[in-house]
């Protein structure tokens, strides 16, 4: 039945000009921006075409008894991954809006059997997409607002227990250079400024965190490192500020000068 899937996919892929060596570019996603115009209608057509194939084939595959060893979830995830493998070059070739692609990938990733466990101490920066594990579906998401360096407000939801660094990475928030050391207390790039009342309710800061925070630009009395602060229910509606770096102040001044000329 895998052969059937492949054979059905061949005519589809023959219609597309495959992009050789497609590579994932860092997704620049900001919830406040409208999706970039590309060829949305074209992409939606292929999305529905491939989804139709997926929906048609999956019950057929599951109904066969050819491979007794496979589980139902194995098959559907394989098909999903196969389709996303086809879709990636397609979307790249058509220069489709990146937010559409992210949405699609989230659909396929949810078919993963194992959720990608993000360890407390660190995680790969290539793990950009969050797999829904299903285990925390009972927890209410918490809303968090990040005020970016240019004043832009980025609003997102987070799960209890997630660190603020994990939130930024998993939600792909457009904060430059955030989390360079990937949460291992070896830098201060995830420095965030909290409101006083929330700051006082955070878990106590360790010496190790304070050591790295000491090196951060724009240190305030309500500063913490995002990788060490974990979401709690009481943080619903939390607003944190990304500190303006020395270079930001200078570049803002410079742009101001130019616009006056």
């Amino acid at each position: 039945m895998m052969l059937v899937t492949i054979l059905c996919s061949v005519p589809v892929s023959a219609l597309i000009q495959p992009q050789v060596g497609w590579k994932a570019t860092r997704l620049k996603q900001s919830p406040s921006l409208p999706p970039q115009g590309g060829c949305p209608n074209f992409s939606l057509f292929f999305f529905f075409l491939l989804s139709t194939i997926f929906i048609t084939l999956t019950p057929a595959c599951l109904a066969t008894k050819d491979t007794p060893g496979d589980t139902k979830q194995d098959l559907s995830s394989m098909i999903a991954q196969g389709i996303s493998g086809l879709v990636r070059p397609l979307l790249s070739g058509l220069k489709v809006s990146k937010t559409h692609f992210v949405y699609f990938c989230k659909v396929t990733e949810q078919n993963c059997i194992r959720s990608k466990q993000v360890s407390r101490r660190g995680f790969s920066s290539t793990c950009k997409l969050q797999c829904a594990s299903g285990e925390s579906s009972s927890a209410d998401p918490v809303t968090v607002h990040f005020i970016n360096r240019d004043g832009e407000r980025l609003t997102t939801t987070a799960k209890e227990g997630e660190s603020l660094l994990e939130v930024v990475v998993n939600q792909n928030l457009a904060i430059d250079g955030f989390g360079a050391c990937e949460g291992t207390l070896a830098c201060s790039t995830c420095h965030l400024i909290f409101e006083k009342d929330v700051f006082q309710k955070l878990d106590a800061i360790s010496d190790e965190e304070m050591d790295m925070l000491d090196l951060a630009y724009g240190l305030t009395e309500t500063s913490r490192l995002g990788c060490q602060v974990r979401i709690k229910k009481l943080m619903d509606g939390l607003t944190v500020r990304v500190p303006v770096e020395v270079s930001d102040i200078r570049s803002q001044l410079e742009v101001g000068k130019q616009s006056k000329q």
Partner: protein
Amino acid sequence: MAAPARVGLRRWLSSRAPAPRICVVGSGPAGFYTAQHILKHHDLAQVDIYEKLPVPFGLVRFGVAPDHPEVKNVINTFTHTARSDRCAYYGNVTVGRDVTVGELQQAYHAVVLSYGAEDNRVLGIPGENLSGVYSARAFVGWYNGLPENRDLKPDLSCETALILGHGNVALDIARILLSPLDFLRKTDITDCSLAALACSKVKRVWLAGRRGPLQVAFTIKELREMINLPGTQPVLNPADFTGLENAVKDAPRPRKRLTELMIKTALEKHREKAVMAQAAVPRQWGLKFQRSPQEVLPTADGMRVRGVRMALTRLEGSGDSAKAVPTGDMEELECGLVLSSIGYRSLPLDPAVPFDTQHSIIPNNLGRVMGVPGLYCSGWVKRGPVGVIITTMNDSFDTAQSVLEDLQEGVLDVSVSKEGFGAVGSILRSRGIRPVSFSEWEKIDAAEVARGKAAGKPREKIVDPQEMLQLIGH
């Protein structure tokens, strides 16, 4: 203008102009962060990164200590950038020799110089060239597998080492010299260095600086690590810290905490000293303040170092700008190994690029090289060899911002199309230079990781560039 509208306008503008081609010279943090920022904020720009070694990442690979692997996590984001569509890596290309900056400027709309600091400051004192005296830069390069330092063969057969300097590099070296071998065995320190350290007789390391405790340049995390190093005892003289508790009462938190940690360590260890005096603590390290090296003293046969004559100083002024003035008193410190850790230094790359020889940086304004349109700089070659990765990151974003502004304002004329590597590739071919691509680096990377696996190390670095090139069939 509201941020989304500004971004939208930028996108609209960039989608109607030809693709700008940018060249970055140097593949360390400065080069990669500059490239990353440009690629992220311009939808069409193509960035080519050139590197003189076959392998990328600069000081992240060759400067960060082997026992600080978390700091090297930035390599993941750099790898992501290098693999992206609009970025290309060209290793084994020495700009200034294989291709000139002028030739790069003809091939690209903008050239960013991020080649860092490959040299070091010199003491300028007699005896500096005696056997047994090394620059910290060369020593760090040696244990980190930098090809040019692979034959250093430092003599570790003496008991006392003296490191001149109070920065993080000085602490790194002290820590590598005194770390239990088991700690180092599982790191990516080179096999050769590990073997040398296994035979090392060094059991006492002094870190001497010209000024006082309030002027130390190292940071608290590294100091704490040194204080807690198993099998070692810190030796800090309480007399050096008299009155300092008061002096830092109102200082900014970082300086205050750092000083308080030194004070605490000095007082604690002093009390315990009597108890531990006869204890078999195998290794010691200590901080010496207000000592300025005047002469490296030779052994009787005049061949090697036997000690350093130091001038005792007093401080004029306070804080970061305090100056060390000799008092006239001298002191001799016996040692068999001297490591000069007084700063890295950039070198001029190409006659076409202005260079400030006094400060050893490229004169610039917000990363725009003075007097040369289309030429930029970022990282240590721009600001001087100071700071940790976040400093370089912010600085690189700063320069990238200048490039983006110049693209937007039309200061960089992208209506003239440039060939980029199309032109440079032919030049290199005609000179017999074969660049190393990023996927070829990944083959070298895989080989290093495989070799390390057998020994339980994250990698076994290849230190011979010829071996690297042979591995990829060049």
